[in-house]
């Protein structure tokens, strides 16, 4: 009996050692690591992000690579799980020995690996929204998407312009939603806005009328929904169902065609802040971002379906990285980090980036466009 156990255990350990493969040290490629939420609840972020990275890296390699070296993408799918993200960062650094990291898709996965990034001293550009990622600034950590605070500010500014002072807030239970809610609550008073209702829902909930009924009974003049995925579409439909006539604001979390498609007619009149890429077609020809957004859009849509602002973040992150590599003339991590930090006047799909030692994002508030959905199409509000 006992010896049987012993035999089994030794077999187990044997299996373990077989799995431990020898590690390859490659000097003639540049290794970019990434960990994205390609499956799971945040897959609408990770999926276009990964596609974008793969597409452009393939393209670059065909064109001869960077500094004469091929680029290799090492990617792992976190499914949005921070525990997995931590594992993958270690795997990227220790096993795959990547030079720079792009990811993760969500704030949760990014924040989870932040201590490790600091420890491993490897530059990383996050594709997640939370302001906590860059505030306070961490030496090795950058991000490209607009923050939730910028979104809240953009929305509140518009509300103020329209004379709203009482606003109902409804948000999901995920990291993006909660963080957006926190920022909104903190910012409101600055715009003379009072939050008169503060409701939440589960991201997999199928009905939010109970929460919205309460909002209907409040004296709110507008509704702001911070959320992503399918829930904001349900909220939009539920608002219409309840006959609530208040103006609806959404966050940049729903800046995709899918939202309009799911919400149908109910989406008309909804306003939200979004990156220029979402309305690339509508941009004025003299808009500084017109060229870059149209180029990305054409590229992406030639190969995949509808473009989204999330894939654009990956595009920006990749371009900033490549520029920095060229500038640093290699992949020395310290030099690379400094080069990223010195990104100036990079016109990207998400806006114009001007990074510095205490701004690891480099976007200004005006890089958000305020959009309104009119007849199922985006329109820029001026």
């Amino acid at each position, binding site marked *: 009996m006992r010896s049987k156990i012993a035999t089994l255990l030794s077999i187990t350990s044997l299996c373990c050692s077989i799995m431990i493969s020898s590690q390859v040290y490659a000097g003639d490629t540049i290794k970019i690591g990434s960990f994205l939420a390609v*499956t799971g609840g945040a897959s*609408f972020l990770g999926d276009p992000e990964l596609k974008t990275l793969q597409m452009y890296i393939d393209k670059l390699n065909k064109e001869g690579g960077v500094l004469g070296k091929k680029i290799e993408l090492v990617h792992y799918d976190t499914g949005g799980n921070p525990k997995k993200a931590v594992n993958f960062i270690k795997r990227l650094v220790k096993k795959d020995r990547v030079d720079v990291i792009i990811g993760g898709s969500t704030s949760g996965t990014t924040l989870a690996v932040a201590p490790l990034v600091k420890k491993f001293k490897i530059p990383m550009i996050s594709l997640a929204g939370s302001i906590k990622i860059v505030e306070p600034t961490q030496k090795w950590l950058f991000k490209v998407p607009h923050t939730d605070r910028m979104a809240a500010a953009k929305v509140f500014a518009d509300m103020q312009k329209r004379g709203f002072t009482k606003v109902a807030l409804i948000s999901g239970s995920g990291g993006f939603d909660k963080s957006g809610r926190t920022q909104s609550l903190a910012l409101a008073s600055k715009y003379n806005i009072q939050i008169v209702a503060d409701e939440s829902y589960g991201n997999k909930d*199928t009905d939010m009328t109970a929460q919205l009924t309460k909002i209907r009974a409040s004296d709110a003049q507008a509704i702001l929904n911070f959320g992503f995925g399918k829930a904001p*579409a*349900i909220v939009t439909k539920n608002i219409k169902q309840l006959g609530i006539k208040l103006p609806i604001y959404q966050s940049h979390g729903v800046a995709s065609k899918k939202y309009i498609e799911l919400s149908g007619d109910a989406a008309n009149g909804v306003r939200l802040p979004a990156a220029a890429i979402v309305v690339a077609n509508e941009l004025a020809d003299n808009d500084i971002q017109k060229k870059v957004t149209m180029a990305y859009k054409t590229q992406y849509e030639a190969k995949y379906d509808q473009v989204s602002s999330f894939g654009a973040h990956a595009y920006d992150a990749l371009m900033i990285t490549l520029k920095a590599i060229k500038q640093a003339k290699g992949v020395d991590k310290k030099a690379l980090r400094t080069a990223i930090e010195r990104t100036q006047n990079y016109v990207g799909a998400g806006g114009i980036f001007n990074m510095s030692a205490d701004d690891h994002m480099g976007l200004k508030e005006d890089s958000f466009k305020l959009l309104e959905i009119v007849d199922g199409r985006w329109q820029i509000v001026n």
Partner: protein
Amino acid sequence: MSDYILQFLISGITVGSIYALVGLGFTIIYNASDVVNFAQGEFVMIGAMSAVSFSIAGIPLIIAIIMAMMVTVLVGFALNQFAIKPAKGASVVTTIIITIGASIFLRGAALLIWGKDFYSLPAFSGEQPIHIAGATILPQNLWVMGISVLLVSAVLWFFKYTLLGKAILACSCNHTAAQMVGINVGKMMLLSYGLSAMLGALAGVLIVPITFSSYDAGIMLGLKGFSAAILGGIGNPIGAIVGGLLLGILESLGAGFISSGYKDAIAFAIILFVLFVRPSGLLGHEHQERV
């Protein structure tokens, strides 16, 4: 205040009807085979997703729905044939893991077929809300409630008035005696899985215009359906319906009156409390052990 409550009730009953249908699916399979099928939620998802696919392919809605039901029934048959039957006699925990494995497998398959996107169907009859005494309701909600009532009645009728239904019931209350009157118990099991899958598929088709669907939409619904079946007392079809409606209403009242963030916690806390007081659910029978 009263229109508050009415609105909460409407939303609770809509959601609750779905939980009830899923719970009913749990009950049917449990009665037939003593297995709690954690892949029940996947039936809902597969029903919804295939209906959307057929509809997108240009097939008229009603035919698309019927085809979606047929696909799901086949999945139900397959589950019985390839996962439950070969594991006959396994312990409760083992069958739980098997059905969880099946649900992961089906989710994985759905991911490959449909990708990660959300899908929706157009509402069956427009989206113009209907006003009732200060509360509003969507036509699709009425569809959900109406068809749920119809389905539940049909299922109850099936078990009460058809020979086949009675034969399935006979199997669930006494396998040996059922065999002795000439009922093929294996066939009844297969039928039960098919029936349960069909119910799930219909539930999926009904809600997809309201709640949308994606490859992982089955998890939450399965969980809630299981809770409904347990709350009502597993094995009792009326219990599953009562449990489902109650769960839906509890969630909606909890969100409305106490806290929307904690509404699931409130619902589960009440389920726990009910179980502490009535260890076999609201309408379940306590089993007397024999020594």
